[in-house]
């Protein structure tokens, strides 16, 4: 039974919650606003909130200064590429473990998870040297390989927890109705698996997009995604707040939107199903 909530109490909590929410969100909002300011307005004291001269010049400046678009494309290729490659490997594996569990399935799953616990810095040196010798340093394909492998355990785990929730009875029912194995997979299992695969895809693109250890250490100029592009603003020349804001806004906007859509799956994916 729902309790009757007093309106005054609800209004009080509305004020507090919005205050706290806006405070946490403020740095993002401020970055967004600053990206439309002139460099002088960006450091004005007292700060200008909305009453400044709005301009788009920073966005064009960022593109001209360091070819934003090519870094953006690197991010897209690396995050989407590594996620798709991961799914191709993970879907059959998770499928088999969920529907044909063996005695050692649990051990295999736990072992896969344990590879994720390996601190990246522990294998930085050999990977750097292997990449150097193979000519993979500062290439997109090299980063796709690394990000596929580091996120593979998460992809398999997420898919496994989704697949395991597909009831086995529905397969038996389909079989009773005379469905062939092909029809079973195509018309019964696939439609039920698609939402899980989609959530996994979304979360993994977010993780790969924001990955900032390997992308910073294995790229220089050619394959640098947005994480590395933004890092180049850490040693600035002159006034640069507005340009930094414009670059930052463009770097986080697409993923922020995807993230908001995937917030429910986030908990499941990042806790390996331990909290749902």
């Amino acid at each position: 039974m729902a309790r009757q909530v007093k309106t005054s109490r609800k209004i009080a909590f509305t004020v507090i919650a919005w205050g706290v929410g806006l405070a946490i969100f403020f740095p993002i909002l401020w970055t967004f606003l600053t990206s439309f300011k002139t460099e002088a307005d960006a450091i004005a004291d007292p700060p200008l909130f909305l009453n400044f001269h709005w301009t788009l010049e920073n966005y064009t400046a960022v593109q001209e200064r360091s070819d934003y678009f090519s870094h953006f494309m690197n991010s897209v290729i690396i995050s989407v590429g590594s996620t798709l490659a991961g799914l191709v490997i993970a879907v059959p594996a998770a499928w088999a473990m969920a529907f044909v569990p063996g005695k050692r399935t649990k051990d295999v799953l736990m072992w896969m998870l344990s590879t994720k616990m390996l601190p990246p810095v522990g294998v930085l040196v050999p990977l750097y040297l292997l990449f150097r010798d193979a000519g993979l340093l500062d290439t997109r394909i090299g980063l796709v390989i690394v990000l596929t492998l580091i996120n593979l355990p998460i992809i398999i785990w997420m898919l496994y927890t989704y697949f395991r929730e597909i009831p086995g009875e529905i397969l038996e029912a389909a079989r009773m109705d005379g469905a062939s194995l092909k029809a079973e997979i195509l018309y019964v299992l696939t439609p039920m698996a698609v939402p899980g695969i989609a959530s996994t895809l979304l979360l993994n693109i977010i993780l790969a997009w924001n990955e900032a250890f390997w992308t910073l250490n294995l790229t220089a100029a050619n394959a640098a995604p947005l994480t590395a592009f933004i890092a180049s603003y850490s040693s600035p020349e002159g006034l640069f707040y507005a340009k930094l804001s414009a670059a930052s806004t463009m770097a986080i906007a697409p993923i922020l939107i995807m993230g908001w859509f995937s917030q429910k799956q986030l908990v499941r994916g990042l806790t390996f199903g331990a909290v749902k």
Partner: protein
Amino acid sequence: MATKHSRAAARLMISPAVLLLLGWMIVPLAMTLYFSFQRYNLLMPGMEEWIGLANYQYFLTDPAFFDALINTLLLVGGVLVITIIGGIFLALLLDQPFFGQGVVRILVIAPFFVMPTVSSLVWKNMFLNPVNGLFAHAAKALGLQPYDFFAQAPLASIIGIVSWQWLPFATLILLTALQSLDQEQLEAAEMDGAGPLSRFFYIMVPHLARAITVVILIQTIFLLSVFAEILVTTNGGPGTSSTNLTYLIYAQSLLQFDVGGGSAGGVVAIVLANIVAIFLMRMIGKNLEA
């Protein structure tokens, strides 16, 4: 029912993933271990030789290692305390009925999706900068001396930035756990005369214990490897005052080209991470049976 035929097929479907992860784990690990016993500097090619445990001896007795170890513990511990206490408060707040719950939830979660290099640079320049940052403006408006965050308190500043990034994660998980709490249990306790504080400590906290453990373990895994936030703000300095273990090994390997020493550090980092990992695996393993 699984047949012999389907078992073979299943094995075939799993093997690519297993083989790739096995290679990914064993090849670099074996190389790290091998390099860690070698004198191997990229600036002195051809001088490689077996030197036993000397790299470990140098790495572990280097004062920078001790500093980095303390900084790593402070960073992980500080962020955990802030995000868990803050996360509990935020989860309790977001669980209350109010207008616009969905929107506020989205605002609170947003920092988690901001890439580390962006959040670090935005905080460093637009908020914490002692001349042009918003905090400096605010201090001046109040007639106070602006504070130079990264010079005076570099590690605390990084802890603050990383906490801002991870607070949404803790909040989201604790909120999810809180929403699975049986409302009738709370109402029953209330009717029996339990006040808000005893309801919190005797019903909510025990219910959240599992989620809190998960938050601690998963955040620890990620927080041990904090890197970009240090690279773009302080470069580990001044001195070693904001160098963590990950950054120290990075500096030794890729800035000083000391492959042997960096590898020894890598092995030490792996051993430390494994201690945490064992606890995490037990938690998740238990859940798998449920």
